[in-house]
């Protein structure tokens, strides 16, 4: 078990290295000069030269990478081209809001997608299955910003049940903070639910086709025992994997939803960094999001191996 965990972690290391190279190269591959791209061709040449010097853009690539990556290892992600502030400070500032929204959205999605996927998967081809499958298709087709706008119009503007946008730290005013979280969390949760529901459904469908299900029935076990102890228990590792994959859509969705609801999380940071061509920031965010995705999936894989005795041996 420990050896398995160790080997998984070791396998993730080259991935992380590849990710760091990609994030680094991506910014350098932008045609022309990032500083010029940022300040425009009419930018003050003196300022351009100063910035270029400060960010080390005129030194060889390898030494730039070396300096950047040792900085990253120490938690220093460099300085924002735009605001001149340390990127790590900016990002750390955004973490509470980011986690609050992501966690709430994930909760919404788990409450919707897992039961829906299980219900559909338990009786594939049934009317309920067709209904849920069509709903997920519809959900995939509706863009998050449209859904968010709709919810905002109905629940904030017309019904005035919740504030339409903004953020208050939970510590400052818990009640208001939760009220503000509601709409963006539901929007983001609904946006990622189709993916999770489909992955859940296929995991369950796959499991009910296994021959241990009819054998369990032949033993006279109760339907309850069969769905919990056999179907769901055996689908669980795949559900955990599905959750890991869903993080990607959670990240993508948060960029749109945070912008829409004026939510000061990392998703907003991505949007503004792209608009402002803050390449140092883009570089850092690529690294962080990629690293997050790799780590989450690593954790999911380890959890899977705990859940499935067959994996532990390999």
């Amino acid at each position, binding site marked *: 078990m420990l050896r398995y965990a160790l080997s998984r972690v070791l396998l993730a290391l080259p991935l992380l290295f590849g990710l760091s190279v990609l994030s680094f190269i991506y910014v350098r591959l932008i045609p022309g000069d990032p500083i010029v791209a940022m300040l425009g061709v009419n930018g003050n040449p003196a300022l351009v030269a100063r910035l270029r010097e400060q960010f080390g853009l005129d030194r060889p690539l390898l030494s730039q990478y070396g300096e950047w990556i040792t900085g990253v290892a120490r938690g220093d992600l460099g300085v924002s081209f735009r605001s001149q502030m340390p990127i790590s400070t900016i990002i750390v500032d955004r973490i509470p809001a980011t986690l609050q929204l992501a966690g709430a959205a994930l909760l919404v999605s788990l409450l919707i997608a897992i039961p829906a996927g299980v219900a559909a998967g338990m009786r594939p081809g049934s009317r309920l299955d067709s209904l849920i499958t069509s709903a997920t298709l519809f959900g995939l087709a509706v863009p998050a910003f449209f859904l968010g706008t709709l919810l905002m119009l109905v629940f904030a503007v017309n019904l005035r049940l919740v504030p339409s946008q903004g953020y208050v730290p939970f510590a400052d005013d818990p009640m208001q903070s939760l009220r503000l979280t509601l709409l963006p969390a539901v929007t983001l949760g609904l946006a990622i639910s189709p993916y999770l529901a489909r992955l859940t459904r296929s995991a369950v469908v796959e499991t009910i086709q*296994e*021959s*241990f299900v*009819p*054998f*369990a*029935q*032949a*033993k*006279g*076990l*109760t*339907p309850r*025992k069969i769905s919990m*102890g*056999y179907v769901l*228990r*055996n689908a669980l590792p795949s559900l955990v994997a599905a959750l890991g994959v869903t993080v990607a859509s959670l990240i993508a969705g948060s960029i749109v939803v945070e912008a829409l609801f004026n939510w000061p999380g990392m998703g907003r940071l991505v949007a503004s960094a792209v608009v402002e061509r803050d390449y140092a920031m883009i570089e850092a965010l690529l690294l962080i999001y990629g690293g997050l995705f790799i780590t989450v999936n690593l954790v999911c894989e380890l959890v899977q191996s705990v*859940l*499935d*005795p*067959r994996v532990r*041996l390999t």
Partner: protein
Amino acid sequence: MTPLDETGGTVLEVRDLAVEFPLTGSVVRAVDGVDLDVAAGEIVGVVGESGSGKSVTMLALLGLVHRPGRIVGGSVRLRGTELAGLGPRELARLRGRRMALIPSDAGAALNPVTRIGAQVDEGLARHLPELPRAERQGRILDILRRVGLPRPDTQVRRYPHELSGGMQQRVAVAMGVQLGPDLLIADEPTTALDVTIQAQILRLLLDVREESGTAILFVTHDMTAVAEICDRVLVMYAGQIVESGSVAEVCAAPGHPYTKALLDAIPPLGGEPPEELTTIPGAPPDPRAWPVGCRFAERCPLRRRLGDPAECTSVAPAMATLDSRGSAGRRSRCHFPDALVEAVGGLVR
């Protein structure tokens, strides 16, 4: 006729059982009018080509035909209780306790995430909830020992994948017999195993019958295994039983040309048993539209030898007693069973 007949009497009585699978635009009648009886302590072989309806018949006995398939007619009586009249809950209470299944591939049929001991315990806990846990523990070890699982006290803590195929099959047999069912249904219980292990499992079925007088329905493709352990044999073709009788009599003088073809297909002594009985030329008819006459007519050598009599293709033969030979219960679904005897008798190859 059965060696151990303590409780005696008929365990299973099936009449005119029919199972259908509706498809888009047509209906597959996979089991069509099956009659069968199994007495206590009897081992009855069920043979027939792939797709002849053996497994569907067995599932129907257990009440486990799944949507869209359904039992469309007939009666199944287990020790006199009509199963068709029972609700799903009552049926589930019978399964595993009064009638049990031994699957063909225990490796796939055992729950991969549950330890052996806990899995054997599921059936006990379900059907004997009043039994104290400690006592169940003792019974688990006991039954595993009885099926010849070495060192059961360590095996109970292992997962199915940590056991060999033969051990997994033994565990499945243990789960099947642990509550002393009246009827054990073994659907190809040895196909996934190599020859020596196969022999051990067959031996085990004989032991189970010997010890508890359990009636066994033994589905197989292996006529040699039938000859080894069965008292009687049922031959299925195209959703029907086409011949039944004691193994000795059927093997000595088959009463249906299909049975004869099956027997002719047995490999020479020492050869591998065939994976499937495919050595008979031609294919069974389409289950969506059974022919009007005899379902074997297309492939029947006897019909050709008799000069293609009209009955074969126009009148469906009924299951009829073969008066001319053998004991009662010797039946065949052919218009000309006696011609077969003559043909066999006068056979010059």
